[in-house]
């Protein structure tokens, strides 16, 4: 415990410029999206509402440990929920920490989760228009993700093609709790389109599919579930690898967001062990599974692990591979990682550059 404290850490203002790979903007009001929806879909929303495959009608199945899941000091002074006020986000995050690029992930509304898939596709387009006009055009440091209605692959491909080539969008984003595991064939056209347009797929833990996050049933406590998203992301990585998504799209890049990183190393070991024993079941994997993970996947560090002895974290990150790590704050959420204080181990200059900036430039193909 004592080893994870500030006074034992080298305080390190991240002077080199940070690429923050998980920033949450938000609608100030659900009405913000209305101007970007057609009359038909505005009427639909007013009459039938946003309906997601959620077992808790009228509420979120996710636990909350803080209002809006956010740091208490992130509520904008001029009103609106955390993340909804660009000026305050600039002050509190981008300017404060010298963030040169912030990767936006919108969680407060989702098109991919809509049970009415046509509405979901319209909502994705509206969200993308809103992100483009109201965020990326006001601060060039912010890069949006093309949100797609991933359960309807042809519609998702149309959305990718609509925005491809627009440098204000750095990736294609899908929810991670899906109808089938994301490696399954129904999603393959989306990966092909993303690879064809040189866009990584960003998979931020999110979404509802009616199942518990854990494969062992609904947990009682947030203290359980906060960790269980990492388990669900392991299943997601395993699916993408074992179904051959990475093998058949060798230029596809995938970024896993908000599940930490410590689990990546043992997952690679286990998958490689299985491959040596059962390779003939997945014969299209002509190399050990870890090879695909360690060339085509990146992982955001937040929430950063805090082992009792910091040197254990150094070892763990060595095992994962320094070139796989992307720093993320998760601003404005309550489990925010501060760029200056979250990583309590000494870094070499090269590790610092990779973690805070250069790996993201490679993963997102930034100039």
């Amino acid at each position, binding site marked *: *415990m*004592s080893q*994870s*404290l*500030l*006074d034992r850490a080298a305080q390190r203002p991240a002077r080199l410029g940070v690429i923050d790979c998980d920033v949450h903007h938000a609608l100030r009001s659900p009405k913000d999206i209305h101007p970007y929806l057609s009359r038909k879909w505005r009427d639909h929303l007013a009459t039938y509402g946003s309906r997601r495959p959620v077992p808790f009608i009228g509420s979120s199945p996710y636990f909350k*440990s*803080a209002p809006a899941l956010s*740091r*208490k*000091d992130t509520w904008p002074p001029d009103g609106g929920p955390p993340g909804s006020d660009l000026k305050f986000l600039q002050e509190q995050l981008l300017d404060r920490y010298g963030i040169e690029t912030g990767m936006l992930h919108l969680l407060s509304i989702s098109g991919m989760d809509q049970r009415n898939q046509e509405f979901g596709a319209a909502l994705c387009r509206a969200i993308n228009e809103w992100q483009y006009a109201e965020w990326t055009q006001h601060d060039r440091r912010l890069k949006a993700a093309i949100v797609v209605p991933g359960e309807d692959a042809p519609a998702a491909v149309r959305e990718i093609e609509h925005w491809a080539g627009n440098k204000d969008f750095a990736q294609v984003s899908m929810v991670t709790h899906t109808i089938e595991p994301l490696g399954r064939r129904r999603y393959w056209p989306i990966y092909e389109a993303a690879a064809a347009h040189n866009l990584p797929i960003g998979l931020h833990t999110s979404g509802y599919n009616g199942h518990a996050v854990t494969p062992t049933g609904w947990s009682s406590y947030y203290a359980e579930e906060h960790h269980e998203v990492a388990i669900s992301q392991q299943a997601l990585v395993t699916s993408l690898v074992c179904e051959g998504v990475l093998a058949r799209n060798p230029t596809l890049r995938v970024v896993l967001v908000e599940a930490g990183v410590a689990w990546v190393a043992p997952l690679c070991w286990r998958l490689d062990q299985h491959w040596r024993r059962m390779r003939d079941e997945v014969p299209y994997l002509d190399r050990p599974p870890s090879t695909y993970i360690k060339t085509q996947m990146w992982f955001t560090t937040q929430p950063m692990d805090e082992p009792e002895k910091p040197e254990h974290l150094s070892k763990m990150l060595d095992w994962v591979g320094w070139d796989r790590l992307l720093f993320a704050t998760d601003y404005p959420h*309550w*489990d*925010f*990682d*501060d760029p*200056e*204080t*979250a990583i309590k181990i000494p870094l070499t200059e090269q590790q610092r550059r990779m973690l805070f900036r250069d790996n993201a430039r490679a993963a997102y193909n930034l100039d």
Partner: protein
Amino acid sequence: MSKHVVALAREIPPGNRKLVTVRGRPIAIFNIKGEFYGLLNRCPHQGGPMCEGVLTGLIQSDDPGTYQYSRAGEILRCPWHGWEFDVKTGQSWCDPEKVTVRNYPVEVAPGQRVVQGPYVAEKIPVTLEEQYVVVEV
């Protein structure tokens, strides 16, 4: 160490707090049921601003299904990651010996005493009739 007049006592009613800066240090002053306490405005974990934390009570349990709630309003939770601290001592609940927020002695002094010194009160106009919050830094 020197004593600094940082606020009128009535500016910070019970249950309230005020962020002040003394000798360059941001210090959160809390009024807990009429007693004043000062904590560095920086969580020892990742640096969250303690002054914006929620004051709550201490929940303890001997067994799932039973609990005791005590010390209402005396436990300060960091506004970022929710770590719990005793607002009176700065000690954390998770590791009270090693994990603490730096605390500063705070007292309430009448204006009559404050004007005699050796208090430092350059930012607060002092009148004889008022009560003042004084922090020692």
